[in-house]
């Protein structure tokens, strides 16, 4: 076997087994007059699998995208592994990163998986997976290839490593995208509705890979519509509604004994 050491948990836990992985406090996001997030706080320890559920327009994707500053929050703070992202006021009264380098460095430790895969179409699957390790993290190419091949084998795409994304099915593309995110040895994996753009028969193969990652105690934050899956793999479930956390707790409590009326309605409408 080549390099299994690279595939272990991305970070050795330095202090205790429950170090902070993500800490978001009082996050607001305004698009013009529309306030999409109205003060959302969330913290996840290492090894947590947080599932964020909610109807469309509830702000769950926006929230996830604020964690790596793909959307800039209007107010609030985001910390990753205890490091708070420095923000400053921009001209319009919103926030912007005070230090672009810091954001880039932290982003390169967050493995993002998109709803629409967003693989780079001019590169083969293998080139997609080694791109960030080689050109952002400055790892030696041979080492990156070794890690990438092991990851591709793991998501079942080793044979497709020299194929271009356009020639793969949606499920294969999403698995390649997951391998790309894993290749940076992320502190936290961020999944933004990873199965929403897939044909129903392809959802299973992607969920299998994500479930696998959850079981090996990778820290992840997962925005999803797959309720059964969220119940199976999540350690913590957050129900967002209209930009605030309506209810949160362990999956059995959320799905088994929902307290709020809205959550009850939401769950019954999904099933």
């Amino acid at each position, binding site marked *: 076997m080549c390099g299994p050491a690279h595939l272990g948990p991305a970070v050795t836990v330095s202090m205790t087994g429950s170090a902070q992985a993500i800490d978001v406090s009082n996050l607001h996001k305004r698009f013009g007059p529309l306030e999409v997030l109205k003060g959302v706080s969330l913290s996840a320890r290492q090894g947590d699998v947080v599932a964020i559920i909610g109807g469309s327009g509830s702000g769950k994707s926006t929230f996830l995208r604020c964690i790596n500053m793909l959307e800039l929050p209007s107010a609030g703070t985001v910390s990753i592994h205890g490091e708070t992202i420095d923000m400053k006021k921009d001209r319009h009264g919103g926030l912007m990163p005070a230090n672009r380098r810091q954001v880039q460095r932290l982003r390169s430790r967050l493995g993002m998986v*998109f709803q629409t895969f967003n693989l780079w179409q001019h590169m083969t699957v293998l080139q997609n997976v080694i791109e960030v390790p080689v050109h952002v993290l400055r790892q030696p190419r041979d080492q990156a290839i070794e890690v990438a091949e092991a990851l591709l084998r793991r998501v079942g795409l080793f044979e497709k490593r020299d194929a271009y994304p356009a020639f793969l099915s949606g499920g294969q593309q999403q698995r390649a995208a997951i391998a790309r995110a894993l290749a940076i040895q992320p502190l936290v994996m961020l999944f933004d509705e990873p199965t929403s753009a897939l044909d129903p028969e392809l959802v299973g193969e992607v969920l299998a890979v994500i479930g696998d990652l959850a079981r090996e105690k990778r820290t992840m934050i997962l925005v999803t519509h797959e309720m059964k899956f969220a119940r199976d793999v999540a350690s913590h479930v957050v129900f967002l509604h209209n930009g605030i956390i309506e209810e949160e707790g362990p999956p059995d409590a959320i799905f088994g004994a929902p307290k709020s009326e809205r959550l009850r309605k939401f769950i019954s409408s999904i099933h």
Partner: protein
Amino acid sequence: MSDGLSGLPLYVPPKPRSLLEPHRLLLMAVFAGIILCAILFMRWDWLPTYGPRLLYGVWQTLVMLFWTASIGFLLAVPIGLVQVTGPRPLAWLARIFCTIIRGTPLLLQLWLLYYGLGSVFAQYPELRSSFLWPTLRQAWPYGFTALMISFAAYEGEVMRGAFAGVPRGELEAARAFGMSRWTAFRRIWLPRALHRALPTLAGETVLQLKSTPLVATITVIDVYAVISKVRQDTYLTYEPLLLLALIYLCLTAVLVVVFRYLESRIPTREA
């Protein structure tokens, strides 16, 4: 029929075409006859005399094409890019430049540069005594500049479209993995845009090849100028012009093959 598709015509894969089908043989015979007639009944005795000069002319045409297209394209990349990214004043400047150059005949631009700017330069004694004068009093710098500017303007438009057409998600993925703006541009945006623009660039380069004879009007000796000289000296009309057509045809074929090769390096799936 046994399957459920009895209403549909059966799909018959096209037979591989042979070069030896009757209508093709006939066409080839006709074409060979025309060439044979041209060789036998037309006058080609001037060829050995002008051969070396013709080769020199072809070389000049190719040099002109290569450098005006290369440098023109290097200018086209920022011209296209600022129209997509801003800042707004630069975008306007680029747009005005493209509109003016694309909206006026190349021949006119060439003459304005050569007869206009060239004679203005000649009025300055400082310039006439400077080290630049030996270059500036020749014709080719003006021809070169006109062709280069023209290529930059047309390809600036092409690159604007190509940059704008790269899916946002792929650029977002680049940002999400911590790429700096420069890395994202160099590794993702530019190669993606180039790949999209290649078929158009191939066509535009062929057009540029066929614009080069215009420089003969300002006394630059390219292959067209050599052929004109042949016509003046020998009073022949068709023979030199036919040969000229054949030369441009061959050069175009070479360009097409080169661009085909570049395009085939990254396969595209027809949607």
